[in-house]
């Protein structure tokens, strides 16, 4: 018999010393020629910034390979020192930021490729369980159009909330927890 899962509870407001004691927001060195800054702001349903959230990302490397035993595609290289995991708190302006590389494409549910994307978890006081979303890339229009997750979202406005904007070389994806322009959140 399988055991029953432990319920989730909110991260609360006091997690900083334990979870953000050191900076884990840089997945690559600033010297990496392909280093890419991804930034965003977390907003609540009143349009106020959320200064006490934590955002985590998980992604494949530039070749499209996950640094994990379940990704056994040995023909694709792993990058030394690239874990694919990052964590950023939000600051007093609700802002988070990561320094990473754009991931390659990874396979989808039916063998088709998914568009390059980054998996995102959001934790905060007032969230009894994490929110899951994705970051897609604005320069991948063709791949985004046939991506199995993006194309499953019929509401065009909701679909667009997953695609980052290019702001002069820095990518921005704001996260709206609630209200007009709410981000598309995913059910695992």
């Amino acid at each position, binding site marked *: 018999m399988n055991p029953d899962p432990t*319920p989730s*509870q909110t991260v609360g407001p006091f*997690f900083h010393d*334990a979870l953000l004691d050191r900076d884990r927001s840089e997945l690559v060195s600033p010297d990496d020629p392909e280093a890419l800054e991804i930034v965003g702001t977390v907003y609540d349903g009143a349009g106020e910034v959320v200064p006490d959230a934590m955002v985590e990302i998980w992604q494949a490397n530039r070749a499209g390979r996950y*640094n994990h035993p379940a990704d056994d595609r040995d023909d694709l290289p792993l990058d030394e020192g690239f874990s694919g995991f990052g964590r950023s708190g939000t600051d007093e302006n609700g802002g988070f930021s990561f320094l990473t590389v754009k991931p390659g494409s990874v396979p989808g*549910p039916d063998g088709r490729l998914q568009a390059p994307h980054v998996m995102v978890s959001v934790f905060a006081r007032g969230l009894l369980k*994490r929110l899951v979303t994705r970051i897609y890339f604005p320069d991948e229009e063709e791949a985004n159009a046939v991506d199995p997750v993006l194309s499953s979202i019929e509401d065009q406005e*909701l679909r667009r909330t997953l695609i980052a904007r290019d702001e002069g070389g820095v990518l921005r994806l704001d996260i709206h927890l609630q209200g007009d322009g709410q981000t598309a959140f995913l*059910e695992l």
Partner: protein
Amino acid sequence: MAQRKGEGTAGYLRDDGIQPPYLYPDYVATRLRAPMKPLVILPRTLSDITGPAYGHGPTGELDGDLTRQHSGEPLGERIIVTGRVLDADGRPVRGSLVEIWQANAAGRYTHENDRHPAPLDPNFSGAGRCLTDDEGRYRFVTIKPGAYPWKNHDNAWRPAHIHLSLFGSTFRSRLITQMYFPGDPLFGQDPIFQSVRDEKARRRMISTFDLETTQPEWALGYRFDIVLEGRDATPMENHR
């Protein structure tokens, strides 16, 4: 009782009362932070049956002993908290990072935003981490946290709890939860605890006093096993 908005409606496909809903109005902070649009179903792909192998980073020997992080010993009731981390199939999750944080014995966090007028303890920071062993077991030495007031409703107090953050082996298994202590009189009025509707599921957040873990003339022992969602990594069919 009228159904609460956001409960049992589209997007809460697995609303079996085990996991709390996003919107739980009694917990006031959910009211402006809970998403209201239906969730988008995410098919299983490599992106979520993989996950951070986060735990291979350095954890110091003393990171799991919150009573020895300063020059003196913290005040309070010394306790040992231990248990196993299991996946959805009941298999141990090995070598995985467990991070904890908690208030001190007086119910005060070291955090700058904690305004509760209870004393700080110069010998207690309240943050620790450790890795699970080959049986999925973790172990912390700490002091029993105190209850503390918060502004959710009139005369609101949080039951004593320790926050735990776990990764498991895939993106799906990520969990942040809270461990409570048996017999706490504050459970009934705490909306965070009560947000889990299923009574058995609520009980799974309460640790058990354990005489075997208890060390004579030194510390009381509490057991707390954790079961994560998702299975251990198995390569997917057709992922090439």
